[in-house]
């Protein structure tokens, strides 16, 4: 019995020790490593989207041509003439103190004239493309009355504007009222007034008839027959008159963000022909002036475009013909290597461009006798056009862009321990590039640098693919992510991607201008080889 008691006692001690040992054992986590491969990116970049986009053309040769056309100014009738919302009030009362008016009797009022707009634009005729008149008719007599509203000079397809309303009876203080909205789209409006020699004048006339089936009614001079006509949201597509000495001038700065990423290097561009083309579809004389053109690059170097026509007024003729036979006038200003420093200007790779211009309409005043005309299809446009072969020489041209990064992993749980990003590239562009990644902390300090194992080699070092006839070069670039990099993931808030471009000639290895072949592309396949450390 004593032996058994000893056994039980020892067993209890063993159990206690076991618990202690087990508790200490559980502090260590179960871990193992596994190797995972996953595709990430599969895409092909080319210039196809820029062809037929007024940027590139394929032309007759096997290389791309820059055929750039961009409209930088485009003005229409809405930029010169507008009809503000206008309220016309036509009041009428009889001239005698009191009058007994039999049933069906009409009282005709004289035409009244109303000014619209302001006198900076002297409109003689307009056509409404879209708009509404809100009519309010007020009857002060105690029997129903018929109002006929006429707008002389306002017509559609030769028919003058006329509307009739049956207005219930009322009093002077509380008149019978009718309200109606009338669509006046498509109406021509002559604004020359009763005399026919005026401008900005709208006419109206009012006829009031008593009820032919009603009683006679006493009308006094204190009773006012009233019509309000409110022109609302009127848009026009034709205007004739004198549109004034309108001056449009501005100095604008626009940025090319992409070029803001350049950190070093240079490009070599071929001779360029750049044209500014001004087309005038309005029957208005104009005068254009380019006051300044300059750009500033990534190191702050500013280049002014110089040319004999910069700062000198250029007169733009008005269009000829009318409506369907309208013919635009065209005026061009050309810049090339002979008459300007355009090549130097472009090779400066300006990230910030400033253009100053001034456009003056009717620079000589009203010399047309008030016969400026703008038709529905009239536009005043300024276009910039450039033609050159798409030829670029890159010499260490380095672009760097920084992205936010917010991927964390808990090193106390399953996590990626190390890995490699493998970039497989098929390059049909005659340029090479090398890529570096900078892993940065919140202070902008570079913690780690990931350098690609090799460069993306220029297609000029490759061979012609018999399938598509394109010269291409395959490259495989590895970006190794070490354990220490991944351990620092917690501190990485930004990644800067730096790419350096070169255009080496395979014969000399010297960077030189290269023509970009039609159909050039760069096919990219990026995959990740990751070592996953499982922790349980």
């Amino acid at each position: 019995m004593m032996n058994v008691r000893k056994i039980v006692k020892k067993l209890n001690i063993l159990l206690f020790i076991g618990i202690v040992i087990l508790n200490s054992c559980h502090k260590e986590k179960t871990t193992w490593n596994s190797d995972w491969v996953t595709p990430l990116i599969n895409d092909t970049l080319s210039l196809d989207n820029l062809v037929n986009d007024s940027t590139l053309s394929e032309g007759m040769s096997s290389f791309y041509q820059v055929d750039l056309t961009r409209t930088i100014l485009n003005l229409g009738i809405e930029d010169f003439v507008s009809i503000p919302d206008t309220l016309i009030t036509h009041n009428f009362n009889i001239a005698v103190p009191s009058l007994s008016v039999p049933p069906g009797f009409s009282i005709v009022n004289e035409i009244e004239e109303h000014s619209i707009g302001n006198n900076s634009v002297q409109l003689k005729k307009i056509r409404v493309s879209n708009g509404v008149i809100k009519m309010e008719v007020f009857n002060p007599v105690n029997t129903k009355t018929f109002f006929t509203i006429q707008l002389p000079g306002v017509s559609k397809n030769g028919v003058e504007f006329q509307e009739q309303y049956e207005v219930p009876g009322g009093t002077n203080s509380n008149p019978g009222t009718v309200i109606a909205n009338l669509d006046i789209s498509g109406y021509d409006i002559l604004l020359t007034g009763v005399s026919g020699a005026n401008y900005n004048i709208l006419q109206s006339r009012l006829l009031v008839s008593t009820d032919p089936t009603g009683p006679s009614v006493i009308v006094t001079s204190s009773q006012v027959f009233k019509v309000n006509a409110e022109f609302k949201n009127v848009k026009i597509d034709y205007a004739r008159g004198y549109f004034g000495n309108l001056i449009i001038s501005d100095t604008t700065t626009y940025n090319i963000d992409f070029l803001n990423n350049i950190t070093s290097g240079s490009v070599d561009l071929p001779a360029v022909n750049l044209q500014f083309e001004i087309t005038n579809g309005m029957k208005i004389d104009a005068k254009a002036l380019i006051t300044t053109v300059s750009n500033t690059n990534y190191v702050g170097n500013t280049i002014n475009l110089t040319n004999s026509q910069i700062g000198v007024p250029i007169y733009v003729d008005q269009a000829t013909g009318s409506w369907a036979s309208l013919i635009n006038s065209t005026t061009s200003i050309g810049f090339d290597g002979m008459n300007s420093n355009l090549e130097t200007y472009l090779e400066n790779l300006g990230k910030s461009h400033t253009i100053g211009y001034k456009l003056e309409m009717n620079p000589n005043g009203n010399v047309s006798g008030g016969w400026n005309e703008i038709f529905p299809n009239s536009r005043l446009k300024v276009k910039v056009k450039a033609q050159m072969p798409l030829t670029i020489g890159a010499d260490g041209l380095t672009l760097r862009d920084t992205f936010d990064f917010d991927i964390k992993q808990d090193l106390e749980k399953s996590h990626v321990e190390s890995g490699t990003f493998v970039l497989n590239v098929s390059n049909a562009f005659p340029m090479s590039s090398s890529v570096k990644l900078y892993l940065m902390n919140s202070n902008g300090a570079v913690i780690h640098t990931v350098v690609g194992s090799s460069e993306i080699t220029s297609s000029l070092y490759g061979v012609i693919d018999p399938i598509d006839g394109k010269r291409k070069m395959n490259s495989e670039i590895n970006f190794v992510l070490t354990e220490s990099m991944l351990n620092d993931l917690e501190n990485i808030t930004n990644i800067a991607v730096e790419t350096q471009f070169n255009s080496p000639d395979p014969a000399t290895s010297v960077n030189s201008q290269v023509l970009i072949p039609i159909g050039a592309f760069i096919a990219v396949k990026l995959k990740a080889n990751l070592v996953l450390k499982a922790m349980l």
Partner: protein
Amino acid sequence: MMRLVLTIIVLSLFSVGSAQQLLPIQHDTNTYNQEFILTGLADFGATSIENALSSKFLFGGNITNEIKDNSLEKHKGINRLGLDITSELEYRNMKVNLFGKENLGFTVKGGYYSYMSSLYSKDLFGLAFYGNESFLGENADFSGSRFSAMTFQKIGFGVIDKKKKSNVSLNLYAISNYSEGNVRDGKLFQSDSGDSVSLTFDGEFQYASTNTFLKGYGVGVDLDFRIPVVLKEGKTAYIQFLAKNLGFAHVNSTVTQYSADTVLNFDGFTFNQLIGDANIFNANSSILDTLGIDSTSITKIRFLPGFIQIGKIVDVMNTSKLQSFFGVRMYPSVSYVPMIYAGVQYKTAKWLDLGANVSYGGFTTLRFGLYSQIKLNKFALGISSENLVGIFSSEGKGQSVILRLRLQL
């Protein structure tokens, strides 16, 4: 080794289990007033995973390539593993005459049960422990893989035949964890270069997704019928029909089910998908929708992971030094194949029984076991393992320890 032995002992304390183990249920016709039975089990079994690997999940540490390779070699197309951790305390009162009948006492029991079983393909093991790099250029097939896991607590009340010790109890269950998964068709193909991947998946995964402790309830029975069989020599052998936790569980908390029947091909994103306003990270559709995975909430009624065991048991009253026991045990789970077992008990002294057994089936294949039982007046302490190789060898496939403590008053 010492650590292993200690762990098994300690585990058995943590998981004192029900009596489905081979530590023989002994038929005892002696009468006594009250009995406390504390029984327990920690049993991990596998057809292919060696202890060198599974023990890392218990003790921690790094699973080296050598450990993984050794287990991978043992794998066949489809493999099994299972874990059964249970504990149960039962009180029997045979002093009272239940329902006024002199031969009936009552029994009250309660316990904790955790059960997990899995069928899985060799490729699924490879994918989990090696990653997909080793499958480049070929299919990783995990079709037919499934798993289920449930943790629950039990409280039961029943009647017991004072002499035969046959008893039946009605139990209520509290479900505290539930999850289940099934892959009817699953294949992952990756090109030689790893730049494209194709996933075929038809299956679902569901789990009780609320944070509450009680995620459902259940009802079931325990049965223990002992049938005397008269042998030729006039001796009597006792055949036991034992059923534990036979019943249903209703998981009434939210069960989230993810299901998919889809084929996904992926060879990388385009730049437009990664940058710009229309990038996939800004898309309104969820990643599950993109992958064709349906997410729904369901309620679930399912069988409890109970078992049935039929076999000859050891008779305490038998004066023979050597007695045999044998039988078969079955779980309602495709991951568990019916296990047959047989063994002998040798009475070395009045206070000490020793036994040995062999079994085949269950979560694993062939296993050898040993047990001992010490009897001290009112106390009886039994310690057993159904997997002797598993205790002493890192090449074994599983661990098993059973402990039973009885106090008769």
